[in-house]
């Protein structure tokens, strides 16, 4: 079974548009939306949710006010500035600063601190007309998006094994931090979707470095390439210098914008230049993955 991850570094370059197109083009596959803090793939695939599961986050500290003596030990041991003295002399934990390390609970001489388990999100197994989709929703403001990404990938691998699918297509998060690293480990290929802009180029270089750091092969496609042809050329020169195969160009095509706005995968029933480019891109990816 092969795993394809779609990344971009910079947000909004067209990851989900490409993932949606591949959903319609690839035969036997499972789709996994690993952009767990802003999941959008479901908007293109109209899923019917079959299973819903709780996602348990790392618990956060909470002080029982009646047991707190105001000694300040929690504030002394916490390295994240989460405990703060209240006007009445007792302490309270700021849940947005707490990282759940339990140092305060271990140190509190009055046993006033507990870390109750919390549901920090949900993950779903759904049916779509293009095949199974595993997706998730992290409660806004929560931590551990990397852990939820790992959960989505585990569930997608199980479904793929059960249904005899030979490919998992993963729609990745923006950036290069915790959730991206969690989405990246152990995949067979990263397709980076970039755009011809100074920001797109800058972020592309960081995401390519990250993929190489983890020893994963990379392909790069330039979306909306005709908005700045000179920048596209510069990106393709960088790719040649780095010996990364350019996977193709996707033009700025109002038809693609309209398809996304209507909540439809960009290639379904469409014949414009954008749809053609996405079909060619899928062929390149398929050949690279030896499917």
């Amino acid at each position, binding site marked *: 079974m092969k795993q394809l991850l779609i990344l*971009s*570094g*910079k*947000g*909004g370059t067209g990851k*989900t548009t490409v993932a949606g197109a591949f959903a319609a083009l690839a035969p036997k596959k499972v789709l996994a939306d690993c952009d*767990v*803090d*802003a999941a*959008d793939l479901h*908007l293109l695939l109209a899923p019917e949710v079959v299973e819903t599961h709780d996602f348990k986050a*790392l618990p956060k500290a909470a002080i029982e006010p009646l047991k707190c003596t105001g000694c300040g030990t929690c504030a002394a*041991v916490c*390295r*994240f500035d989460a405990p703060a003295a209240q006007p009445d002399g007792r302490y309270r934990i700021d849940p*947005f*600063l707490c*990282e*759940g*390390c*339990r*140092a305060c609970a*271990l*140190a509190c001489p009055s046993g006033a601190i507990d870390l109750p388990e919390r549901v920090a999100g949900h993950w779903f197994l759904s049916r779509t007309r293009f095949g199974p989709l595993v997706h998730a929703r*992290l409660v*806004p*403001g929560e*931590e551990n*998006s*990397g852990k939820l990404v790992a959960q989505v990938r585990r569930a997608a691998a199980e479904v793929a094994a059960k249904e005899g699918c030979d490919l998992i297509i993963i729609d990745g*998060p*923006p*950036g*290069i*931090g*915790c*959730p*991206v*690293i*969690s989405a990246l480990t152990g995949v067979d290929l990263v397709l980076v979707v970039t*755009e*011809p*802009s*100074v*920001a*797109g180029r*800058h*972020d592309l270089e*960081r995401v390519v*470095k*990250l993929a190489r*750091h*983890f020893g994963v092969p990379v392909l790069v496609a330039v979306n909306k390439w005709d*908005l*700045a042809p000179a*920048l596209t050329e510069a990106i393709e020169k960088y790719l040649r210098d780095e010996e990364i195969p350019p996977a193709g160009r996707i033009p700025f095509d109002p038809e693609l*914008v309209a398809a*996304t*706005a209507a*909540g439809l995968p960009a290639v379904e029933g469409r014949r414009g230049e954008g749809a053609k480019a996405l079909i060619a891109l899928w062929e390149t990816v398929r050949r690279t993955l030896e499917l």
Partner: protein
Amino acid sequence: MQVAVASGKGGTGKTTVAVNLAHVLAEEGPIQFLDCDVEEPNAHLFLHPTLHEVREVNIKVPVVTRARCTGCGKCAEVCAFHAIAVLGEKALVFPELCHGCGSCVRVCPAEALHEEPRRLGIVSRGSAGRIDFVQGKIDVGTALAVPVVKAVKRAAGAGDAILDAPPGTSCPVVATIARSDYVLLVTEPTPFGLNDLKLAVELVREMKIPHGVVLNRAGIGTDEVWEYCRREGIPILMRIPFDRRFAETIARGRLIVREFPDWRQEFRRLWERVQGGGRG
């Protein structure tokens, strides 16, 4: 006043709004710019700051003195992040999982653990004209962004500041917007933009931070964002129409307020609205 520019969805124009706003405000007085998108900081590509001070951001991670370790496993027991385990009768540290809380060191009965700094990234400081510029950047391969975001914010002084937030709604965004006076949520009128705006609104409401919307690429897509904001009583403080010339200006790393000086007034008005509490 600290104003954070955020959005659930990436690529909606956070950095565009933040840099153009800062540029206009700098014409009137000193302003700080904090690039808190430490995974992919981009504001420097538009503001071209001269950076004269670079500091490393480190956390303290445990190191095992094997001769002293008895393999009792207390360290592994207290670690909430599975960053330390007993393997082959001695403790073994996985530094990339460590948050640097120090619990293992405190609990070790054999004094077999001490802490050493582990680099996560850098914070650079400089100026771009009258803009006091600070940016954080995590090292490639580092998963922990929050300590670098916090280091950027610690570098800020009193006075007005614009904070460019990372995309999403999880911990690096929380660290950025925490204790801000106002959050500008930049979105676009598409189903993706609307879906992710709703998540961002849920977050700022939970954190009780006043907020308003900047609608970018107005004219593409549908009226659904506008209808949502009206229904929820969220002010739309500014609209930036979709215009291929804007897209090209941004692609080249140029400022809208420089290429299209009429827009300086629009960004000034945006700031006035934010200062007035952002009630539309």
